[in-house]
């Protein structure tokens, strides 16, 4: 009984506070903060219980029939928990950060209401037990993030919101068609280890290939696969906490996670391989990785550079999925977590520079390290992680991806990884150089928050990036220990490749 | 509207007429013969004029809804007349007043006769109501009835009486059968009761449709 309702509890732990906050008066700051934190902590507690259970081969499943032959299923398996845990932890940090970031800003009830809905949708995506449920939360995510993207209400934000909606609703439509089609072919499309479509008669193969294309294009919009990535660089007009959440956890990850589920648990990785679907996916991912990095090189706007970096980095996940074999899978899955931690750190820092000193452009960052050493340290860790410097998180991901490429017999992927790392270095190192080695200007563009004693900026803005930066180091250093992301990714890969022996 | 569209519409109408005509000339023998069934059940209907039997017993439910349509139309007309508060009735010609005083009671008598005869022969509530309406219009034109645009409680009650009685009878018999299933022994009486209510209300309503409608501010 309690097993059934645990996944629902995880979803509701952010949904109910979100609904409540939505209708709270602007001035009820304490109550709002309390609701946010209670929700976040309750979610973490529930997840903790389930982590323990799943490690011991337990599955938590909630099932509700919406229409005959159409079930809403929430399921907490190992893969779901990987993503859920990431979301819940980073949500907590982002909430704290947002409370500091939005102090005194208007429309905070609306903001935190949608913020909570956004996380609700993300954990729903994570725990979706079938394609339909995934679609439900995937669309909810679109609706919950739109108000956050346009939160500032400026002309630019409105335009970005328009583009965002156009892309994501279009993607959702493709996903819907693919889903309906698949249900027509296969009945239900539950997520099961090894997929369920291999049992379909062989004459449906052609249709299944088209459906795959529809589904991947549908989730590829949010995962920002080139050429479906156009919305992401525009969406960075949103407030920093939103960008952090969008890029690290909620939106792009939901897309990437969708690719994982579709390949592994709808089609089954072997069946997908037999339909010749994995190589095209790998090529699309590789193109995205290179293209995103190249575009990032030429951005002077810090958040835009980070946004293109996201385009590139998220496709590592898709690439890992497309590499046939457990090692590639491990690399892709662990990067799902690692990229989240690294990118959220970078966006927190970008937000700090903007909020504290009014720095938005890379050309304005000269000497920022001396004024804001802690923020800059966190930023440096994030950037090194992205480049793949050992022993940071990004290195672990890239290592396993490389091994996976060799295992899958796709050595050209190594070249992509190498090129991408070089490009990462090319667009991050100059930034670091400016921060640490250039002299500071006589005045910052707009200093909003003055230095107060040891605090270079507001405490709630500083602590979250420091915490996540520490995590970048820790998950790399202790990758081999129990409950590390890598360990968990291995557990998942074991279960996905249960029947497979190389 | 352009000539081409007009020609098209005329063609459409002519085509419809032709199709109707063709269809009518090629009709099968009806599978159901209702006149025979009406005749067979006429004895149980409480009246002996077949049309009245259909109207107030076999298909009385149609009639009930139709009375509602009539009252509804008056409500709609009143809603439109409303913004222009009732004008004081113009003082009528004394001759008209005398005439109305003479003729109106006569018309009420005729209405009563039509109502009564309806059970056996052509006539009934609608025809009686129409006569009553004519009397009402006459009285109003003679300034002997209050304004219609904002009917008072009594008048509203009179307008609604027929429908309310009809509904009351319809549901009162639900305990022993279905809607409007009169107990055979009481059928004739109940029908007369309904018709009496209807005559009054239909008369008032029809008069109202004319008077309230024409009282709209010029």
């Amino acid at each position, binding site marked *: 009984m309690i097993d059934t309702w645990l996944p629902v509890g995880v979803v509701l732990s952010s949904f109910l506070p979100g609904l409540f906050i939505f209708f709270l008066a602007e001035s009820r700051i304490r109550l709002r903060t309390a609701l946010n934190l209670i929700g976040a902590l309750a979610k973490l507690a529930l997840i903790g219980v389930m982590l323990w259970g799943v490690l011991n081969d337990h599955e938590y499943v909630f099932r509700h029939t919406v229409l005959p032959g159409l079930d809403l299923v929430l399921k907490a398996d190992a893969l779901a928990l990987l993503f859920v845990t990431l979301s819940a932890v980073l949500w907590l940090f982002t909430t704290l950060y947002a409370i500091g970031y939005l102090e005194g800003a208007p429309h905070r009830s609306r903001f935190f209401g949608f913020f909570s809905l956004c996380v609700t949708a993300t954990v729903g995506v994570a725990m979706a037990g079938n394609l339909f449920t995934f679609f439900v939360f995937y669309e909810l995510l679109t609706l919950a993030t739109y108000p956050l993207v346009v939160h500032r209400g400026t002309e630019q934000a409105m335009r970005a919101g328009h583009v965002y909606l156009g892309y994501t609703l279009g993607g959702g439509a493709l996903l819907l068609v693919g889903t309906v089609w698949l249900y027509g072919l296969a009945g239900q499309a539950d997520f099961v280890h090894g997929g369920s479509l291999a049992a379909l008669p062989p004459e449906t193969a052609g249709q299944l290939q088209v459906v795959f294309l529809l589904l991947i294009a549908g989730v590829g919009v949010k995962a920002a696969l080139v050429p479906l990535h156009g919305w992401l660089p525009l969406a960075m007009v949103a407030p920093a906490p939103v960008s952090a959440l969008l890029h690290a956890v909620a939106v792009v990850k939901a897309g990437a996670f969708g690719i994982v589920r579709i390949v592994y648990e709808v089609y089954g990785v072997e069946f997908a391989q037999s339909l010749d679907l994995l190589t095209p996916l790998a090529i699309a991912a590789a193109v995205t990785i290179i293209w995103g990095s190249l575009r990032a090189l030429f951005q002077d706007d810090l958040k835009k550079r980070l946004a293109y970096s996201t385009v590139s980095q998220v496709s590592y996940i898709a690439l890992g999925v497309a590499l046939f074999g457990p090692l590639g899978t491990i690399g892709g899955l662990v990067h799902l977590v690692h990229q989240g931690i690294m990118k959220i750190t970078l966006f927190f820092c970008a937000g700090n520079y903007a909020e504290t000193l009014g720095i938005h452009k890379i050309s304005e960052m000269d000497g920022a390290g001396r004024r804001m050493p802690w923020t800059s340290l966190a930023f440096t860790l994030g950037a090194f992680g992205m480049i793949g410097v050992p022993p940071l998180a990004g290195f672990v991901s890239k290592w396993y991806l490389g091994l996976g490429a060799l295992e899958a017999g796709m050595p050209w992927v190594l070249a992509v990884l190498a090129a991408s790392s070089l490009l990462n270095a090319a667009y991050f190192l100059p930034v670091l150089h400016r921060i640490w080695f250039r002299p500071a200007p006589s005045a910052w563009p707009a200093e909003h928050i003055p230095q107060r004693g040891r605090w270079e900026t507001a405490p709630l803005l500083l602590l979250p990036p420091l915490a996540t930066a520490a995590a970048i180091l820790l998950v790399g250093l202790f990758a081999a220990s129990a409950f590390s992301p890598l360990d968990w990714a291995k557990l998942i890969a074991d279960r996905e490749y249960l029947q497979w022996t190389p | 509207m352009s000539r081409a569209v007009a020609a098209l*519409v005329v063609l459409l109408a002519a085509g419809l007429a032709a199709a109707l005509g063709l269809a*009518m000339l090629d009709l099968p023998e009806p599978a159901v013969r*209702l006149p025979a069934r009406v005749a067979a059940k006429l004895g149980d209907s409480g009246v002996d004029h077949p049309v009245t039997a259909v109207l107030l017993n076999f298909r009385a439910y149609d009639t009930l809804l139709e009375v509602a349509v*009539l009252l509804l139309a*008056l409500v709609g*007309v009143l809603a439109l007349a409303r913004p222009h508060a009732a004008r004081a009735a113009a003082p009528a010609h004394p001759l008209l007043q005398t005439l109305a005083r003479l003729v109106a009671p006569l018309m009420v008598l005729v209405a009563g006769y039509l109502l009564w005869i309806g059970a056996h022969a052509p006539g009934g509530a609608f025809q009686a109501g129409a006569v009553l309406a004519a009397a009402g219009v006459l009285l109003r034109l003679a300034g002997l009835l209050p304004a219609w645009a904002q009917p008072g409680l009594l008048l509203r009650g009179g307008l609604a009486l027929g429908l309310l009685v009809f509904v009351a009878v319809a549901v009162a018999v639900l305990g022993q059968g279905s809607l409007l299933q009169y107990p055979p022994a009481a059928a004739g009486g109940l029908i007369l009761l309904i018709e009496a209510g209807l005559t009054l209300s239909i008369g008032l309503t029809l008069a109202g449709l004319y008077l309230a409608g024409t009282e*709209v501010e010029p």
Partner: protein
Amino acid sequence: MSVGLLYALAGAALVAIGLAGLLLLPQLLRKILAFNILGSGAFLILVGLGQRDGGIDPVPQAMVLTGIVVAIAATALALALARQLLDLSGRMRLPEDGPDAGAADD
């Protein structure tokens, strides 16, 4: 040909006249006349076809009685509306251009 069928055929002609009038005539009073003619045609068809074998059929007759009352109700409402429109706009006809056209350009 029975009397019933003859009048039913006349009803068909009346329906056609009423339909064309309702669609083509711009003046609202004419439209209301046309609607009544259309209705009368339908009534004739109903009774005429029911009695095409020469007998009397009380059922369609009762239906037509109901129909006549409904028609007067509709006519009264239509006239009240038309008069209201006359008072408000000074015309007793509907604006020519369709509502789509009006909405699209504002």
